[in-house]
């Protein structure tokens, strides 16, 4: 029985791809209202972990929960609670405008039509996308697309945010905007889990810093002291 009813929990989580163990008995707790940064080298398994919480990949063994709901048995309940942003600008519909993308996903998440207009407008404004929102995604810059993907993760005010490398390709103003966005979500009570290969970009914002190495999670200072 897991003790924490809200936030993200993983217990003894393992996942392999093509015979290569990516996660090995991983344990993790991300509390609601807490911004947790998970640092790891490329290929360390950060994205796999986020994908398991997002129900896109199922674990081989172990248990992963969002607000107490198991990703294997209660996938639909988990998906109602999460907002995800992966490093994949192709995850947007490029022939639609930024605004149309957000409206579509807002409606797909069950945000009522009238409320979705206001909700989308607020997110666009928060990430300084209002002006470029009528443009097709194909005509946006990489940084603008990245902010749009982060804005999409905030649709429906999810209780858990799973964000992969949020600062990739952003300038200083963009980095400040995204950091502020994520900080406000954590202050609003969401469990925010950010995966990054460079913790120094996000370290100042983090409530908790962890490191993923050899398929398991360790507190930042432990791995730091060990010379990682």
């Amino acid at each position, binding site marked *: 029985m897991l003790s924490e009813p809200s936030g993200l929990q993983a217990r003894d989580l393992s*996942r392999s*791809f093509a015979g290569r163990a990516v996660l090995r008995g991983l344990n993790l707790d991300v509390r609601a209202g807490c911004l947790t940064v998970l640092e790891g080298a490329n290929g360390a398994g950060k994205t*796999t972990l986020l*994908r398991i919480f*997002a*129900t*896109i*990949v*199922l674990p081989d063994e172990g248990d992963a929960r969002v607000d107490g709901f198991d990703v294997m048995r209660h996938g*639909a309940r988990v*998906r*109602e609670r*999460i907002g*995800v942003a*992966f490093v*994949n600008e*192709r*995850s*947007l*519909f*490029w*022939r*639609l405008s930024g605004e*149309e993308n957000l409206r*579509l*996903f807002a*409606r*797909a*998440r*069950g945000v009522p039509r009238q409320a979705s207009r206001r909700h989308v407008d607020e997110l666009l404004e928060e990430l300084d996308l209002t002006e470029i929102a009528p443009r*097709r995604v194909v005509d946006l810059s990489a940084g603008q697309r990245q902010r749009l993907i982060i804005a*999409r993760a905030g649709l429906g005010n999810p209780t858990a945010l799973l964000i992969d490398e949020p600062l990739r390709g952003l300038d200083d103003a963009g980095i400040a905007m995204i950091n502020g966005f994520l900080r406000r979500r954590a202050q609003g009570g969401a469990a925010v889990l950010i995966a990054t290969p460079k913790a120094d970009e996000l370290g100042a914002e983090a409530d908790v810093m962890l490191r993923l190495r050899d398929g398991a999670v360790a507190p930042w200072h432990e791995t730091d002291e060990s010379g990682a």
Partner: protein
Amino acid sequence: MTRTLEIIRIFALKDFRVALTYRLSFVLGIFAAFYGLISFFFISRVIGNGAKVGTPAEYFRFIVVGVAMSSILRASVTTASSNVRREQLEGTLEILAAQPIPMYALALGWSALPVIEAVLDGLITIAVAIPLGFSGLSPDWISVILVLLVSVAVFLAIGFFGAALVLAIQQGGGIMGFVVGALALVSGVVFPISVLPAPVQVLSELSPLTYSLRAMRGALLSGQSPTELWGSLSVLLLFAVVLLPLSLLVLAGCFRYARARGTLARF
């Protein structure tokens, strides 16, 4: 139910908006259906009276319904698999799979616009055929709508099997094209089943398209009521009742299989 309809609406609208950004192919796609129709009009002119397909005018009536229904078949059967494949290639499948969208609503959403387009194409085909000599239309509209709805349900179910294949093995488009071709060949789209060799006629009786065409021709050309069409309609209903839930179960199973293998976005 409301949520499912809303998902279908937003995905149909999304596909329509995307289609509008490719204006030329959107417009040409509408006109493409006419080429076949006009070809068959001239083919009907070389058919002599007393042939197995009747007079030239009777053959043209036969073929117009065949062309209209086969375009609905093609759209319904191929659209779910081609959309899953497109989402895989474009990179949007994973993010859709992470949304709180019921799998069956997503499958219907993927299929909605192409099926609506194909039904409109069918109506336009009939409208265009009238000045070319398509006569004797005496539709029973209740029968027409009923046959259309049940036929689309059966064809969509076949399409969902194709979408499941794409999720499981990253291919299926070619297989579904083969299925459409085979169904059209044995079901009496461009020639009556009676001209087929006897063993193939057995296959015709196993094809749902055979019953769709038989019922639609009866409803559109002979004004037959649902009661009069019950023979074909009941077989179609049986296909729908068996195939639709089964296909959705298989699709859900293949979604889970892809999640378990971590291959949702693999292409």
